[in-house]
C-alpha cells in the first residue's frame, strides 16, 4: 500500500504507528500514513536553530526564484511520495479520494497554490509593505532611516485543516521569509502539504527546513508549543484553546459577508452573480466564502434569487468538470450539519428559502452524502442562523439598518461592501472586526496575493527593533 512518511528535517521516517487515509466513499484505506510520536517531535524540534541556519544561507532573491521553480514543479512535476511517485493527476485523484472534493475544484486549488509560489515577490512586497530584501538578508538597512527586523521564532509550526488545498498557500511564504516549517497535516488531507514540501526540495530548498508530522492531538499541540511561532486552522473549539497565546495565529471560521449599502441596494440584481459566487465557489468550503448577505432592503427578493441561482448546483461525479460541490467524506458529519441547520430553523424568525427549489437539503447521490446549497432568510441578527458558517454553500440573508453596519456584523474575515457611501466606507475602514475589506464588486473569495489577511505572516514571523549603527574607526596600526 502507498505509504506517506514522516519528514524529520527532510529525512523520511517510517513509523511503526500508522493511520489509514481512507477513501471517503468506500472507507477502504488508500494509503497508510506514518504517525509521529510526541517524543520524536520534541527531540527533532531541539534542532530548530540549525534548520533556520540552512535557510539563512540563501538570499531572499534566491528564495523567490526557488519558489518560482517550486511552483512549476508543484503544478506539473512527478514527485516522490514515500516509496512511490506522484504525478499531478495522482495528486488530484488521491486528494479527491480522501476529501470527496471534485477534481475540477482540486485543480483550481492547485492553480491557487501555484500562483502563490510564482507570485512570491509580489506577496513578499505585500507582506512587508515593500521592505528592502536587504533587511531580510542582513537583518538591517541603513538606507534612509535605519531599520532592523528580527525573527520572533526559529520556525513556524502549522496545524493544518483538511477542507481545501488552497489554504496551504497561506504558509508557503514562510520559506521565502527564511522560516523553517513544522507541519501537521489534516488527517483527511495529507497530500497537499507533502507535495508542496517535495516541490520545494526538488527546487533546491534545504531539507532541514521541513518537518512533516502526521500525528495525534497531543502531537499537534506539542508542535504549537515547541515552535517559536504557530498557525492553527480549526473550528471554534479547536482555536479557543489557543486564543490567548500571541505566538499562534488562529484561522477559525471566517463568517465572511457581502454587504450592500442603501445607495446600491435598488440595483441588487446586478450583484446576484457575485454573491452566489462568494457563497458557493470552491464548494463553499473556505473561510473566505460568504456565509452572510447583509442588506438594507429587498432581503426577501435577494434570498429568493440566490436560492434559485444556487439550486442549479447539484451532485456530480468527482471527475465531472461541472462539479461544484463536494460530498462529505464522513456522511455522518454531513447529516449532523444539516441537522444543525434544521435545529436553527425550528426557532422562529428563519426560513429555508432554498427548500422550495430542492427536495431535501441532505441528499445521497451515488452512495455519497451531499448537503445542498442553502439560503436562509433570517429576520434578526440575534437569530441562531444569522451568523453561522458551515462546510457547504450556506448563507443567511438579513435586512439591517445601514447605521448599524459594521457593528452588527460581528467579527468578519472578509467583507465585500457594495456601496459608494463614504460614511459607510469610513465606518468599515475603522472597524477592528473586519479582517479583509473589499470595497465594490469583488467576490469575498477573490484573493489578491499582495493583500494578506487573517494576520500578516511577516508581522507574525518578524518584529521590528530600534536600531542605530555607528561605524567604528579602524584601530591604529591595523592593516589598511
Amino acid at each position, binding site marked *: 500500500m502507498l505509504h506517506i512518511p514522516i519528514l524529520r528535517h527532510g529525512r523520511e521516517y517510517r513509523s*511503526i504507528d500508522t493511520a489509514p487515509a481512507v477513501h471517503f466513499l468506500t472507507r477502504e484505506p488508500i494509503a497508510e500514513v506514518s504517525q509521529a510520536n510526541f517524543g520524536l517531535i520534541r527531540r527533532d524540534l531541539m534542532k530548530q536553530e540549525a534548520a533556520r541556519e540552512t535557510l539563512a544561507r540563501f538570499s531572499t532573491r534566491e528564495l523567490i526564484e526557488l519558489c518560482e521553480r517550486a511552483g512549476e514543479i508543484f503544478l506539473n512535476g512527478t514527485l516522490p511520495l514515500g516509496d512511490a511517485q506522484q504525478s499531478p493527476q495522482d495528486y488530484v485523484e488521491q486528494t479527491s479520494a480522501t476529501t470527496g472534493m471534485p477534481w475540477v475544484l482540486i485543480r483550481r486549488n492547485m492553480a491557487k497554490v501555484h500562483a502563490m509560489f510564482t507570485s512570491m515577490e509580489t506577496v513578499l512586497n505585500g507582506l512587508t509593505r515593500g521592505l528592502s530584501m536587504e533587511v531580510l538578508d542582513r537583518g538591517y538597512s541603513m538606507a534612509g532611516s535605519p531599520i532592523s527586523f528580527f525573527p520572533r521564532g526559529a520556525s513556524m509550526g502549522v496545524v493544518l485543516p483538511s477542507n481545501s488545498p488552497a489554504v496551504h498557500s497561506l504558509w508557503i511564504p514562510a520559506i521565502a521569509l527564511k522560516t523553517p516549517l513544522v507541519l501537521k497535516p489534516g488527517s483527511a488531507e495529507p497530500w497537499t502539504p507533502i507535495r508542496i514540501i517535495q516541490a520545494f526540495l526538488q527546487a533546491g530548498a534545504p531539507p532541514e527546513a521541513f518537518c512533516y508530522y502526521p500525528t495525534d492531538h497531543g502531537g499537534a499541540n506539542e508542535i504549537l508549543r515547541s515552535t517559536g511561532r504557530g498557525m492553527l486552522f480549526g473550528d471554534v473549539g479547536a482555536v479557543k484553546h489557543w486564543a490567548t497565546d500571541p505566538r499562534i495565529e488562529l484561522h477559525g471560521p471566517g463568517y465572511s459577508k457581502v454587504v450592500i449599502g442603501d445607495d446600491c441596494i435598488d440595483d441588487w440584481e446586478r450583484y446576484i452573480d457575485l454573491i452566489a459566487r462568494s457563497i458557493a465557489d470552491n464548494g463553499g468550503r473556505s473561510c473566505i466564502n460568504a456565509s452572510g448577505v447583509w442588506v438594507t432592503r429587498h432581503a426577501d427578493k435577494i434570498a429568493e434569487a440566490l436560492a434559485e441561482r444556487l439550486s442549479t448546483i447539484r451532485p456530480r461525479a468527482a471527475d465531472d468538470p461541472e462539479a461544484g460541490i463536494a460530498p462529505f467524506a464522513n456522511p455522518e458529519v454531513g447529516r449532523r450539519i444539516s441537522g444543525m441547520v434544521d435545529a436553527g430553523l425550528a426557532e422562529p424568525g428563519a426560513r429555508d428559502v432554498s427548500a422550495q427549489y430542492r427536495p431535501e437539503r441532505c441528499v445521497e447521490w451515488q452512495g455519497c452524502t451531499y448537503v445542498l446549497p442553502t439560503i436562509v432568510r433570517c429576520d434578526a441578527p440575534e437569530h441562531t442562523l444569522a451568523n453561522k458558517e458551515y462546510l457547504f454553500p450556506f448563507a443567511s440573508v438579513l435586512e439591517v439598518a445601514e447605521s448599524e453596519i459594521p457593528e452588527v456584523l460581528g467579527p468578519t474575515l472578509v467583507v465585500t461592501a457594495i456601496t459608494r457611501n463614504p460614511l459607510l466606507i469610513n465606518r468599515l475602514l475603522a472597524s477592528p472586526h473586519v479582517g479583509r475589506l473589499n470595497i465594490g464588486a469583488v467576490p469575498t473569495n477573490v484573493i489578491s496575493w499582495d493583500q494578506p489577511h487573517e494576520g500578516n505572516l511577516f508581522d507574525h514571523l518578524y518584529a521590528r527593533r530600534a536600531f542605530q549603527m555607528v561605524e567604528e574607526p579602524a584601530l591604529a596600526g591595523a592593516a589598511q
Partner: protein
Amino acid sequence: MATSLTIPSSLEPRMAEARARLDAWTREMIQWHFSPETGAPFWLDYAAKLGWDPRKEIHNYEDLDKLGFFQDEWLRGGPVERWIPRGLAGKPIYVFETGGSTGVPKSRISSEDFRVDYEHFSETLPNEGFPKGSDWIHVGPSGPRRLRLAVEHLAQHRGGTCFSVDLDPRWVIKLIKRGAMAEVEAYKRHVIDQALTIMKAHDSVQCMFTTPKLLEALCERINLRKAGIKGIFCGGTEMTPQWVRFAHEELLEGVAFAPTYGNTLMGLAVSRPVKAEDGWAIVYYPPSPRAMVEVVNPQKPTEVVGYGETGRVRLTTLTREFFVPRFLERDEAERDVPYEKYPWDGVRNVRPFQKLEKSVVEGVY
C-alpha cells in the same frame, strides 16, 4: 514481522509444571484467605454471602472464576483494616494508593509484598546494565504509591542506595484537564532539574527508575551514557512499539532497558527481550504464581482469547497479603505465547482499553 505464535514442544513440560504450581498455589491461597484464622474480614464476609465455601469448591486456578470479578471500587474508603489477613495480625502494615485519579483513593494494604515482588524482579535484571552495589535514582510517582519504597528496596536488595525526587501525578492530571500545558512543562522541568542535580552530585548513581515521558524529558537534557547511567527500569504508563523503538534508537544509546507493566494491585510483569525483528513489541510476563495477567474476551471476561487475539487485560493477584481475583484492567493487549524463561502466557503491546479510552486521562508523568 511478529515472531511465531507457535509454542515449541520442548516448552510444554515446563508449561505443565508451571500450571500445576499455579493450581497448587491457588489452593493454598484460597485456604489462607477464606479460613477464619488467617483470612481478611473482607473475604470472610464475602464468603459468608456466597453461600458456599471457596475452600471446598475452588480446586485450581480456573475455579477462581466462581468468585466473580474483583471490583476496584471496593478499595475506595475504609476501614483498610478489613483487608488485613488475620494471619498477618501484628505485622507493620503499609497503605499504598493506586493510580493518579482524584477523589477518594483506592488503597491496598501491604507488609512485605512490595519487597518480595521487587526481589523477584531483581532476579530478572542483567548485572551488566544494573550493576550490583551501584546506586539508583527514582524519578517517578512518589507520595502514597508503593513504587518509591519498592524501587528503594530494589536498590538496597542489590547492594546500593536509592535517591528520589517528588512527583505528584494527580497534580499533573489536574493541570492537563484544565489545559495548563505550560505548567505541566514547568513541573516536568522541575522534576528533571532535581534528578539532574542528584546525578551530578552523586556519580555512584548508575541505575534509574523512570516513566516513558520523564525518560524523554531527561534525554532532552543529557546523554544517559555520559551521565553514567547504565540501566533504566521503566514503567508507569503505556509504551507503544513505536515509542520503544524510538527509545532504543534515539534515547538509550545502548543503556540497558527494562520495561515493566504493573500496578499497586499486582507485582511487576517483566518484558522478554525487545527486538526490532519482532516489530519492537513488548511482551510482558507476570510473576506467576503470585500474579497472573491474562487477555480475555471483553464481552465474556471469563474466556481467555486465543493466541495473537486482542482482548481486555485481566489481573489476578495471589499473595498471602492480598487477594485480587479476576480484576478487569483498563487496558487491552494481545495474548502471546509462553517464553523459555517464563513458561506461561504473556501479554503483547498493552495499551488503554479502547472502550474506556475516552474516560481515562493518562498522565504525562
